[in-house]
C-alpha cells in the first residue's frame, strides 16, 4: 500500500497567527528560517513579485524562481496598534508598516527595538527575518 502523501504545512509557521497552511510559496518559510527574505521572479517575463507568488498572470505560467530581498527601502507609512485582533492581544503595542524597495514593496512590522520617536515617513529601513516569542517566524523592519 502506497504511503500516504505528507501534507506540506510549512506556511503555518508564518506570523504570530497564520491563516494559511497550504501554499505553493511554502519555501518562503525555509528562507525565513535561514534568515533570508525572498520574493519570486517570473522566469518568462522577468516580473518581480513581493509578496511572492507561484503564478504569473501576465504569462499565464507558473515558472517562477526565488530571489533574496537585499538592500533597503523607504518607509511609506506606519501605524502603532493599541488593540490587537483575536490572537494578537499579547503582541500589542506594535507597529505595522510598508517599505518601498523601488521595484516592489513589503508590508510588515517595525521591530520593537526601533524607538517610536525615531520613526518617520520616508526614512530608510530594511526588512530582516525574525523569530517571534511563540516560535513562529516573520520579518521586521529595522533602521538602515
Amino acid at each position, binding site marked *: 500500500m502506497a504511503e500516504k502523501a505528507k501534507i506540506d504545512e510549512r506556511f503555518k509557521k508564518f506570523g504570530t497567527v497564520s491563516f*494559511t497552511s497550504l501554499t505553493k510559496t511554502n519555501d518562503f518559510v525555509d528562507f525565513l528560517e535561514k534568515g533570508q527574505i525572498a520574493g519570486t521572479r517570473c522566469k518568462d517575463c522577468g516580473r518581480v513579485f513581493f509578496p511572492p507568488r507561484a503564478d504569473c498572470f501576465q504569462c499565464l505560467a507558473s515558472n517562477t524562481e526565488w530571489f533574496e530581498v537585499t538592500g533597503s527601502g523607504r518607509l511609506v507609512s506606519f501605524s502603532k*496598534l493599541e488593540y*490587537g*485582533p483575536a490572537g494578537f492581544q499579547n503582541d500589542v503595542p506594535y507597529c505595522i508598516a*510598508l517599505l518601498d524597495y523601488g521595484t516592489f514593496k513589503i508590508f510588515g512590522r517595525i521591530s520593537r527595538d526601533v524607538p517610536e520617536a525615531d520613526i518617520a515617513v520616508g526614512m530608510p529601513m530594511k526588512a530582516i527575518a525574525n523569530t517571534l516569542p511563540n516560535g513562529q517566524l516573520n520579518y521586521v523592519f529595522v533602521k538602515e
Partner: protein
Amino acid sequence: MSRVAIIGVGQSEFVRAYPGSVRELAFEGFRDAMRDARLTVKDVQASVICSAPEYDKQRSPAGVFAEYLGLNPQPTFYVESLCSSSSMGLRLAYSLVKSGLHEVVAVIGFQKMSEISSAESQERMGRGADIQWESPFGTMMPAYYAMYARAHMAAYGTTLEDLALIRVKAATYGQLNDKAVYRKPVTLENLTHPEDRMAGPVASPLRVGDCCANADGSSCVIVASEEKAKAFCRKPVWVLGLGAATTSVNLAGRDLFTGLSVAREASRQAYKMAGIGPKDVDVAEVHDCFTIAEMMAYEDLGFAGPGEGRDLIRGKATYKEGSIPVNVDGGLLSKGHPIGATGGSQIRTVVLQLRGEAGAIQVKDPEIGLVHNIGGVGLYGNVSIFGR
C-alpha cells in the same frame, strides 16, 4: 435607451445590538422600502441580498431571506464586496433591469455584527485584507486607514484637528438622525483633550473619535425599469451613472497612499456615464468609516484638489449649507456602519434628498446626488450618481 430608477428606499434603525435574528433584521429595511414604494411582494421579481460573510451563523442568507420576505418563488442573488456590498448589489440590480430580465428588483443589505465580540470582529475584518501575507502581522481596519492618514499628513500637512472637524460635522447631523446609533454631539475638545475617551488611541494617528462604530442594521433599495417606475412611483430617482473598481488587496501592490485608487477610478467611470463632473454634484454621501476616509473622498471625487480636502472641512463647505454638502445624515461615523447595509443606507439618504423628503437635514433643492461606498481598505470602490 430606457432608464433605471430607484422607486423605494428604506432602512432599519442602526443599533448596537439588534434583539432579533438576521432575517428579522432584514425584514425591517425591506418593509420600510416596500411601504415607501407602495409595492406588494408580488411586484418584486427578484431580490439581491448583500452582506459580508462570517459575522453571523447563517450560511447562504439569500435563500432564507427570500422566503422570510415573501419573495418565493422569485430568484435571489447573494452579492458580497465587504463594506460596499449593497452598492455592488445596486450594480447587479441595474444590470438585471437594464437587460430586461427583471423589471423590479429589491436590493437588501444587512449585517448583524453583535453576535461576535469586538476583538473577533476585528479579526474577521482584518481577514478582509490579505490573509496570507498581511493578517499574520496582526492587521486591523483602523490601522490600515491610519497608514493612509499618516501618509496624507506627511504629504500635505493635514492635521489631527482637520480630521477631528470631520467627526464634529458627522455628530452635528447624527443628532438629527433617528436611525443613527450615535446621536450625541462631539466637540473638537473631545478629540483633543488627552483624558477624553474620544481622544484615546486606537491605531496611531487615529483616535477613538476617528473611527465609526460597529452596528447592526439593514437597508433596502427598490430598483425598477422606466416603465414600472412611471407606473408605480410619483417621484422616481434615476440612476445616472455607476462606477466600480478594484485594486491589490495587499498594500504592497499599491502605489497611492494619500487617496484610494478605486474611488478615483469608480468616480471617473460614474461621472463619464452620467455626463457630469464633480461641480455638478449637489449632495453626497461618502464612505467615512474613518475621518481620514472622508478627507480622501473629498479629493478622490474631485470636490477638492489633492491635499486640499482640509480647506473644505475648515470652511464648512461640506456642511448642509455649504457648496458641497457631504454626509449630512451623520455618515458612518455617527449613523453606524453595519457593513452590508451601509451602501443602501447611503443611497436612501441621497434619494430622500433628491425627492425633497430629507426633513431636518434637507439640502436646498438638490438635482444631482452621489454615493461613494468603499469595500475593505479601498479594495472595492463603488460610486453611484443619481438624479431627479
